[in-house]
C-alpha cells in the first residue's frame, strides 16, 4: 500500500493538496476543491482509506484545511467522514481536525458536518 501525494493546483479548476501517509495514518486535505470530476477524484481517496482500514488497521488522523470547496466537493467530504465514522464504530481509532476561517458561517458549516455525520470533529479556527 502506498502513500497518496497530490500537489494542489489553482488553474481553471482547483485541485486540493492531498497527503495520505500509510506509516502514520496521517491524512491531510488542504487548499481549494473545485474539480472537473469530483467523485472520481475523491473515490481514489476513499478507496485508499478503505484499504488502510482493512489492511493496516491503524489509527487515522485527518486534517481538513480547505479554504474553499464547492457543493459537489462537500458531498464527497461527507462520504469521507462517513467512512471515518464507520471505522470508529467498528473500534478504529480516529481523530478529525477541521481548520476553518474564523467566521460564524464557516463555524456553522463545520458544525453541520458534525450534525450530519455524528462524528466528533475538532474545530480549529484560523485567522483570515
Amino acid at each position, binding site marked *: 500500500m502506498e502513500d497518496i501525494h497530490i500537489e494542489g493546483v489553482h*488553474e*481553471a*479548476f482547483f485541485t486540493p493538496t492531498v497527503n495520505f501517509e500509510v506509516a502514520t495514518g496521517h491524512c491531510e486535505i488542504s487548499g481549494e476543491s*473545485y474539480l*472537473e470530476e469530483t*467523485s472520481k477524484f475523491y473515490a481514489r481517496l476513499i478507496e485508499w482509506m478503505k484499504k488502510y482500514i482493512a489492511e493496516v488497521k491503524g489509527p487515522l488522523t485527518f486534517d481538513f484545511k480547505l479554504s*474553499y470547496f*464547492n*457543493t*459537489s466537493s*462537500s*458531498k464527497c467530504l*461527507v462520504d469521507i467522514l462517513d467512512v471515518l465514522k464507520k471505522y470508529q464504530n467498528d473500534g478504529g481509532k480516529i481523530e478529525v481536525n477541521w481548520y476553518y*476561517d474564523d*467566521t460564524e*458561517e464557516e463555524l*456553522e458549516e463545520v458544525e*453541520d458536518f458534525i*450534525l*450530519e455525520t455524528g462524528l466528533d470533529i475538532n474545530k480549529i479556527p484560523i485567522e*483570515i
Partner: protein
Amino acid sequence: MHKNKKCTKFAKNIKRIGMEKLDGKYDFSLYEYHNLLQQNILVSYKGPIDERIMNVIGDNIELVTNDGNDKAKSKIFKIFMELAQNVWLYSAESCKTASGRKLGMGTLVIGEFGDSYTFVTGNVVRNSDIEPVIEKCEIINSLDRDSLREYRREQRRLGGDKKNSGNIGLIQVALTAESPLDIELTPVSDDESFFSVAVKIKKTVN
C-alpha cells in the same frame, strides 16, 4: 475652430450612418446597453460558460469588488462559483466546442448598488425542469437560518444526483449571502423560460 468644423461634419455623418443601419439591427442600443451596464454594472458576460470563463470572470469580479472587505469578497467568490456552475451545467441553451463538449450558455453580471454588490445569473431553462427549482427557491426563502442549515444537511444526504447538487448550491448561496434569492422567471416560448437569480451581498461583512 478647425476642430469644431470637423465635429459638425462628423455629427452629420454620424446621423446619416445611424439612419442607414444596414439591416435595421445595427448599433441597436449598444450604447443604451453599455450605459445600463455602466450605471451599476462592474462586469457582465453573456455566452458559453466553461472553466476558463469561470476563472477569468471570477478574477475580474474579485478585482472590481475592491470596495468590499475580505469577508464580502470571499462570499462573492463562493456565490459566483455556485451560480456560474449552475448556468454552465443546467442551461437549456448550449453550444458545442470543436471537441464535442457541450457548454451551457448564460449571463453573469456583478453590479454595485449602494452599500452592497449584487451578483446575477440568467439562463434559458425548460419549464418542466425549472418548476422544482422554483419550489426549492421558495422553500429556501421561507426558512430561517437554522432551518436552512438543516435543509442543507438533508439535501446533502440525498444521494449523488447531479440535479440535486444544484439545489444544495442554491441553499449554500442563500446561507453565504445571508439574504434571500431574488428569482425571476420570464417565459420565452411555450416550453422555455428565462430564469434569473440575483443575490445581494453587503460590502462590509462583520
